[in-house]
């Protein structure tokens, strides 16, 4: 071997290497910066989507928390309300309130005479206004025979106009409100008779075909009942299942199958659970369609894998030394688990459970399958009554063509998101508060 020659070749090459590396540097550094910029752009894009989504929904939603009301001077004319002079409560419920309202309206616009026009005039009021008036009179029966200024909800088209969500500049033919109607409304505004007030209706009532009367109370109750069933069933079963698999199950093929199966179930599309619910709970067991009971059962099966997986990892994080300590002083395996391991794993399990519940709360696809999409006006009062849930309500409203439902859909979304954020916040708090490092 000629060492001498090799040596010189190497040192020459050293210089050459150095030059080559240097020569390539600017290009490589530029590439580096570009790559880094792509990364940043992608994150900004992701966060941008989030901002746009929230901004979009909030901007649509905020106006739904207000509703336009009209101030009407209503004369509670006894000859209309109680023509037979019976003076009992029954008459107050069956009285002809629309007639009272019509009179008050024409008192405001005495120049309107023609039938068709009169109908449009009365259309300024919400179709729920008579009921509001009835409720008002029932609360203040002393007003019978007197005249009183009452604030009543207006029709959704008027509401949209007041909220400037109807474009006045488009041609009359393409508008839901004609020029003469707009003139009336402008006059009412000028008289200070139209006012935007907090929309109690939205939180107090069930669904309705009329946007100004529709509320989320029914959907909220439905969600509550459904989630109640889910929690009552999935918590004990999920925790028990996690305990068995983590602490007691012999490690054999069966356990492997169960494990693979659970991981798999966690990734099965939610709509398939809906098909299961339809075929098994409704068609086979004959449980009532559209009911929170069935909804809760379906969501239970859907959330179980989430709870089991979270539960197992919580149990796994409890160090074996604790088990050995308890077993060492003669506790049975069951006692060890329930007295020592479970309390330590509980916060982690709860965190997983809350996250699972939050997911169940936002779920809608499987509930469509079991008929929780029906149009239901009544607020449900039990587990077996037909009802809907908040996300499905959102779906239903999103499908309606009325302009007034857009803002209500967004508002309902905001309420749903508020619940979800609270639940996830709680989960994060729990995790932070009870997090333990061994």
């Amino acid at each position, binding site marked *: 071997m000629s060492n001498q020659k090799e040596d010189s070749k190497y040192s020459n090459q050293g210089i050459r290497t150095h030059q080559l590396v240097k020569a390539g540097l600017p290009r490589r550094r530029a590439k580096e910066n570009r790559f880094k910029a792509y*990364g940043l752009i992608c994150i900004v894009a992701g966060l941008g989507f989030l901002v746009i989504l929230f901004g979009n929904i909030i901007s649509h939603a905020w106006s739904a928390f207000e509703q336009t009301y009209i101030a009407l001077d209503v004369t509670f004319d006894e000859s209309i309300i109680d023509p037979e002079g019976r003076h009992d409560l029954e008459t107050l419920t069956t009285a002809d309130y629309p007639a009272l309202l019509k009179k008050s309206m024409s008192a405001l616009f005495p120049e309107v005479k023609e039938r068709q026009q009169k109908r449009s005039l009365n259309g300024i009021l919400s179709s729920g206004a008579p009921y509001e008036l009835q409720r008002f009179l029932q609360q203040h029966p002393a007003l019978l025979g007197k005249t009183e200024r009452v604030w009543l909800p207006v029709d959704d088209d008027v509401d949209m106009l007041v909220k400037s969500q109807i474009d006045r500049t488009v041609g009359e033919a393409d508008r839901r409100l004609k020029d003469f109607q707009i003139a009336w409304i402008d006059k009412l505004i000028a008289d200070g008779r139209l006012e935007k007030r907090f929309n109690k209706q939205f939180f107090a009532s069930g669904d309705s075909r009329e946007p100004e009367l529709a509320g989320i109370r029914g959907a909220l109750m439905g969600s509550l009942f459904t989630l109640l069933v889910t929690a009552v069933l999935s918590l004990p079963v999920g925790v028990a299942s996690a305990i068995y698999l983590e602490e007691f199950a012999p490690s054999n093929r069966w356990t492997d199958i169960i494990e693979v199966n659970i991981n798999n179930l966690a990734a099965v599309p939610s*709509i398939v659970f809906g098909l*299961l619910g339809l075929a098994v709970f409704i068609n086979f067991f004959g449980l009532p369609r559209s009911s929170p009971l069935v909804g809760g059962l379906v969501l239970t099966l859907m959330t179980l894998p989430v709870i089991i997986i979270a539960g197992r990892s919580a149990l796994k994080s409890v160090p074996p030394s604790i088990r050995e300590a308890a077993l060492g002083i003669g506790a049975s395996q069951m006692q060890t688990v329930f007295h020592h391991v479970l309390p330590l794993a509980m916060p982690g399990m709860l965190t997983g459970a809350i996250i699972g519940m939050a997911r169940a709360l936002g779920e809608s696809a499987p509930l469509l399958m079991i008929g929780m999409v029906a149009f239901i006006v009544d607020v449900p009062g039990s587990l077996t009554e037909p009802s809907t849930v908040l996300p499905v309500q959102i779906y239903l409203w999103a499908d309606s063509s009325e302009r007034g439902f857009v803002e209500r859909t967004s508002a309902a979304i905001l309420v749903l998101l508020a619940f979800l954020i609270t639940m996830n916040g709680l989960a994060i708090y729990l995790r932070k508060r009870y997090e333990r490092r061994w």
Partner: protein
Amino acid sequence: MQKSTLLLLLLLISVYAFHVGQKRSQEIAQGKIKNLHSLPKYYGYYTALWAFLPALLLLFIWLGFESPVINHSVIETLPEESRSLSNDLKGLLINDIHNSLSGSAGETKPELKAAVEYLRDLKIWSNWLLSFLAVSFAFMGMYFARSRIRQGHRARNQVEKTVMWFLLGSSLIAILTTVGIVLSVLFESIRFFGKIPLSEFLFGLQWSPQIAMRSDQVASAGAFGAVPLFTGTLLISSIALIVAVPIGLMSAIYLAEYASLGFRSVAKPLLEILAGIPTVVYGFFAALTVAPFIRGLGADFGLDVSSESALAAGLVMGIMIIPFVSSLSDDFINAVPQSLRDGAYALGATQSETIRQVVIPAALPGIVGGILLAASRAIGETMIVVMAAGLAANLTANPLEAVTTVTTQIVTLLVGDQEFDSPKTLAAFALGLVLFLATLVLNILALHIVRKYREQYE
């Protein structure tokens, strides 16, 4: 008595039984707990279990058999011509009677009046009988358990055994769920394929499931070729992945390799919010904002974009699955051992060279697994496509046109009036079967790859 009230009552009885058992064991111990095999509270649990479980079992059996038995006896009371009806019609009749009872059917038909009365009586009777039997069972169980308590009685072992059965049973529910899914979808699918040949379903290019509701109506016979649905699903999912994979992967890389701790701790949870937003919200966003926006944008370029374009649905779905890709990729990138990065840095590689040529190839199996999971998510996603994609089963690869998907069709076929035997309804289950199988394969593959990958670096 309502069944929930009954359940509550049974629970109260078992609390009482707990005390009975505990006191009994203390009597038997004669003041020295040492005399007992187990602690007194175990005798309490033992007694409570005996009070509760048999009664609960009775309750469940009753619930299972109550309505068939009642329905059968109601049918028996009907006139001869009703009893000879086909099973389907009998079912309708029973439904009528039930609806009359609950008052939701308006006027009761005169010929059913007697049956309705009878049904009401039966229901009341059944309820009282059940309540009586269940409560007796509870007390009998309690006294039986109490009589068994002796000094050497191994109450703890028996209680623990029962608990063990409960634990085991709970873990089997997951299996039962899978079996339930498979059976229910398979069963109805087989019935579907009895009417429509499998080959037509899998390879037919025409999908229009509108079938005449009544047999005498003249209408299209309905076509059940699902290929347009498959291609539609694939089109929208591909768009979603094309959006989500680069953005998710690059975000994960930036967060894992470049971002400062502070930035990471803010940006990562914020990105993950995207995964927590209910899909119905995305659907609303897609239909209300994104689709019109894309349509408008297309119009500016002289393109005719459908208002239910695959692009809008796919785009929004892509946004939804960004965090899936990014958080899984993030995990896997972090799992690549630092020593590999050190090896590349020590050779003089820049950070991006290290990432692209060493870290990503090393993390690739995991990332691929994550992408497969995201794909399965996209295929099974329902609300976004129901709200933003169309119903028209177009066989096209043009993202600006409207397409429909498997999940959309399942929803449309099953929501609203349904007849349980029509191919239209059954088709939904056949589509469900395809969906289940497709996602199953993807999931198993993904989970397998991910697990292999985790083992490699553990």
